[in-house]
């Protein structure tokens, strides 16, 4: 496996949005010559501010957005300029988890119904697992299968989104700010789930985030985007320890609470664990 092709390879990707028809505005170059590579089993972070092009890049990667120029290949197969039929087949191998789970689930569909619809669309790829086993993979029990999205908490709904993504055994999970809408105590669970799925499902993850502390705790490598370009990339620890681009430095300087660490709260002189109450 060590000689395996990269899961995702993007070369010189450009995405241009035309604004003709809206006065005399110039075209917007949302992604401007980005190259990016994700090896099997990697969790790769993509950071940048709003408007930097990270979501446009993610959508292009997931075959959901436009591509003006450049190459994207998934496990060695080109995915630009292919037939619709092949694209549909390939699309199942890249799954996306969006920021707001309640916005991405159909409000009128129970969890079970949503999964069965997916199964009918992808009969070949979805028979490997039952609904209950699938939910167990994301830490949920099957009694939630008959719930509607509004009956789920934010964390539960995001787990359902991840379960739906996993149903098709994707090689790549594109997670666009998957925890920004969640409370921190729930965010921790979802981030842990991603780490765990990388091990158990051998899925690679492209994690889009504005939170460098999240990226540092989760990602093997990181790309920093600004104004549609990758300004810096590298191994997470290395890049964050000695950033060379001024923009990366600025991002790091802006992180709140850098001086706090966990030593105090992880120290053993905390609770003395006693017998459980009956």
């Amino acid at each position, binding site marked *: 496996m060590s000689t395996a092709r990269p899961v995702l390879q993007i070369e010189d990707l450009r995405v241009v949005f035309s604004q003709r028809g809206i006065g005399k505005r110039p075209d917007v170059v949302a992604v401007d010559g980005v190259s990016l590579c994700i090896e099997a089993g990697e969790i790769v972070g993509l950071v940048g501010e709003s408007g930097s092009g990270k979501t446009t890049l993610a959508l292009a990667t997931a075959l959901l957005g436009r591509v003006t120029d450049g190459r994207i290949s998934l496990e060695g197969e080109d995915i630009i300029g292919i037939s619709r039929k092949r694209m549909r087949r390939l699309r199942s191998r890249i799954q996306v988890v969006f920021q707001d789970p309640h916005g991405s689930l159909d409000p009128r569909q129970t969890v079970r119904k949503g999964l069965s619809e997916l199964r009918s669309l992808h009969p070949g790829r979805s028979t490997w697992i039952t609904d209950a086993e699938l939910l167990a993979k994301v830490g949920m029990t099957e009694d939630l299968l008959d719930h509607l999205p509004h009956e789920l908490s934010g964390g539960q709904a995001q787990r359902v989104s991840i379960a739906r993504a996993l149903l098709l055994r994707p090689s790549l999970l594109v997670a666009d700010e998957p925890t920004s809408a969640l409370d921190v105590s729930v965010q921790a669970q979802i981030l842990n789930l991603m780490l765990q799925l990388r091990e158990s499902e051998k899925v690679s993850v492209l994690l889009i985030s504005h939170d460098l502390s999240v990226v540092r705790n989760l990602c093997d490598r990181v790309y920093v985007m600004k104004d549609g370009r990758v300004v810096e990339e590298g191994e997470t620890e290395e890049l964050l320890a000695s950033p060379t681009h001024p923009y990366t430095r600025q*991002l790091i300087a802006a992180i709140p609470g850098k001086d706090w660490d966990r030593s105090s709260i992880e120290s053993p002189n905390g609770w003395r664990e006693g017998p459980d109450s009956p």
Partner: protein
Amino acid sequence: MDPLLSVRSLRVEATSSVGTIVAVDRFDLDIYPGDVIGLIGESGSGKTTAVRSLLGLTERNVRIAEGSIYFQGEQVLGDGKNHLDRLRGRHVGMVFQNASSSLNPLLKIKTQMRQVLRVNQSAQRAAAHQRRIEEVISRMGFHDPKRVLRSYPHQLSGGMRQRAAIAIAIVSEPEIVIADESTSALDVTTQAEVMDLVRELATDMGHSLIYVTHDLLLAAEVCTRMAVMYGGEIVEEGPTASVIAAPRHPYTLGLLRSVPMWAKKAPLVGIEGTPPRVTPGFIGCRFASRCAHAVGACSEADVEWTQRRDSGFRCIQPKGAPLHTGNG
């Protein structure tokens, strides 16, 4: 020194078609001059309802069921009084989360600042108002403050709008400023700039501050004290350093273990479960159902506040204490 603002036993209830819930309960808070208090909590913890109640800005289905509020020693709420409208704007300014929706889109920033002065300091002359407006806006870190005054909200960027909202909140020189998630919608680098300004409000401009946020580490950057809320109650309160470095309440510890920290890569530990629905008859610790250290006694009676020197908590077996055997 007397507190500027004292809140005692505040209880706020919200009624909807599915019944009544207790949004804020047994809420005590003292704000002294120069204090920067972080009010920390996750969604549904009651932090926003609590500060909105202080301003008398609650929704129609929300009512203050109990409690008293004193401003500079004078009772403004309780015993049949409700003078919260006298505080609002003049003595307590408010900066909301989303400046693009809290600012009036039809009025220039200058006009909105002038309105606050007119309502709160009607005796002064227009010329004095103009001077005050220019003085305040010049301190907000704008490159071109005059242009900001002439601008409508949509002509400003998110960070500029948030700073304009701060200018509007402090133009009438309130003793206390309440900022509710005032930087959550901003990019991190813009957030850092606005936080610098928030810090200056307290240090150079002499306002006391209540900083409401879900972000514990962000609060730790500016706050001298922290109050952590869960299920409508303050569960722990104390100086920032002691709350973060030596939390006593299991929920505070749970939060700290959930936050990805910059300094040290460590496994994150979330908090399993979801917060309870607190109805008027609720008894016991609100956190008991999710607490790894809960014993029978936690759910049998309401947990009283324990004050130790300058910090306190609401827990019968706090971190560092001998363990309750709790064989009830």
